[in-house]
């Protein structure tokens, strides 16, 4: 999978979601909340759980899920 794992990004980093390595039900849960391919996300606070900003709202997400979401970071 391309890109870096969300869990590895420092705070205030933005990126575009490239893909997941998650079971279907877990991936569906994050996708319905706006963490889906092509969407821009920002890591607001890293930790466990970490805080993401996407589609104008913030979501809290367990680190073990974030570790399986891959993003292309902006340069």
């Amino acid at each position, binding site marked *: 999978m391309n890109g870096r794992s969300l869990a590895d990004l420092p705070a205030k980093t933005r990126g575009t979601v490239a893909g997941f390595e998650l079971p279907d039900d877990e991936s569906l849960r994050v996708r319905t909340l706006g963490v*889906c*391919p092509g969407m821009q996300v920002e890591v607001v606070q890293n930790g466990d*759980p970490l805080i993401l900003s996407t*589609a104008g709202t913030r979501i*809290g997400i367990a680190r073990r899920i974030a570790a399986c979401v891959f993003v292309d970071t902006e340069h």
Partner: protein
Amino acid sequence: MTEATSLLLPVIESSVNEPMTIALVGNPNAGKTTLFNVMTGLRSKTANYPGTTIDHRQSTIVLDGTPHQLIDLPGAYSLEGLSPEEEVTRDVLLGKLGAKEGPDAILLVLDATHLTRNLVFASQVLELGKPTLVALNMIDEAERDGLQIDIEQLQAELGCDVVSISARYGRNLDALTQRLGALMRRESKAAPCASAAVCGGCGGCQYASRYRWASDLTHRSVQDSFGERTRVGESIDRFVTHRWFGLGCFALLMAFTFILIFWLAAFPMEFLDSMFALSAQWVGAWLPEGNLQSLITEGLIGGVGGMLVFLPQIFILFFMITLLEDSGYLARAAFVMDRLMYRVGLPGKAFVPLLAAHACAIPAVMTSRVIDDRRDRLSTILIIPLMTCSARLPVFAMVVALIFPGNALMAGLTFAGAYAFAIIAALLISFVFRRTILPGKTKALVIELPPYRVPSLRNALTTSIDQSWLFIYKAGTTILVFSLILWFLATFPKTEPGALPPVWQDRLAQAEQTGGTEAYQIALAQAQSEYSIAGRMGKFIQPIFAPLGFDWRLSVGVINSFAAREVIVSTLAVLYGAGDEESGLLGSLQQATNVHGERIFTVPTCLSLLIFYIFAMQCFPTLVVIRKELKTWSWPAFQFGYMTLLAYVSAWVTFQVSSYLIERY
């Protein structure tokens, strides 16, 4: 005759006509419940569809003189049904639950300040092709944030009417009901056409295209005059979700909630208690002495009073939970707790029911619905009754006063210890369950952190009144029936004074000589309860409880407290001859001896009783409510089994070890 029949016809006709249904849907945090509350007031009824346990509220609203049924469906992010609540929303909209063809119309609530996310759910709802009206809520907040929303543009692209409102401040609600009326009369455009804009069936991720469509539409219809800015919420979040500060903040808020539940609620509770005592006295004075008087004053008023006395606590509990939820903090609390609770196999959201359980296990089971995953929810429900509920406090107070008479410090420490002990034991048990009978990973946290908002007191009030009614409705019948059964067991058969054995004859005579009629009555009640069904049962099962240091009277207390734990105190008062007054109870208990003249309430027995009541599932109403929630008797039966076993073994160990230690030193 024919005239009469024809006159009746229109009446039959109108009763056949079911009112049209309007489903109220929206994202969580979109202000759906607030809108429902202001549209219906306190007239709503809580119901659930057959086969589901998720309650929804419904109410009749009148539009243009015609009654319509408004159904408040659980908040959802999609129609995927990813939680039991989202499943209900999806199934009702698709007509799998309730009416076959689904609701007649949809009132879709969107949060104007988070349009993109809300439009994603909207796109799925609009694709259903039902007559839909969009309520663009929190418009006041959007304006304050500098967002200008082009309603015309939204209407054109969504293909349905859009009314901007503020449910909280009652803004534009008249316009909303007016347009809803027009929609129901089919005067406005019926089927929305947004579906054309979204490619739902493409090979890729449908949510990617939905989000793209939603964010494009937001760009076209919303002008952000302030531009990008750091929101206040982010700085608050840095603090309240901090690794350590976050926990401190959580602890402070929970402590505050506890103080309200136990200190503030004490005033109305005392009032209710005295009201019930007064009404029992009043009825007792009116009715002739006998079984009917006893049934009404002790069985009926006692039973109802024993339940209603907890209402202030439950009300305050729901009031606080609603305030915390509406303020946006509850999601942060789940966020902070998730890291800790995950280790014992519980999701972060489980802290809400576990907090509620300190007031009463029944509302706790009701609030356990916030947990999406069935297995996570089950493991939470299994440990809920271990939390120190209010009904245990009178039992603890009695035991503590017996062990440390007059020592407030030690009494307080024992109390705090009992609380902490219960919590630690519950977490350990959850840990064990997740590795044995409920294997599998706890669902990982994915939670929206909604913006901080000043909560509405009115909304919290409406919700907590509603939930308090739900508590009475769910537990009331069981508690009442149980207290009537126990009254019967403790009253019959009524042995006449003349039929009592000679030992009692002597004691009765002695009591009358020294203490007059009052002492005679107390002694008679004591004798009669010994020969009642409950008393005989206590003597029969006493051998089982003997290793714990319980005599037959304590055994009766254990059986009786199955209706509600605190009942043991009043039962012991009668059995140890303290009369109805609980004030004399401690003295009677301290002097109580067994047939060999040995004291019964020794330190080991008291400790054993304390431990027994920490663990025992001594509450039938809770079991009934859990059965209602889980739709099976097997889990509540298992729960009763494991808790009773745990209580018995720990009390036995406590009794044996402390007896040994006291003998030795």
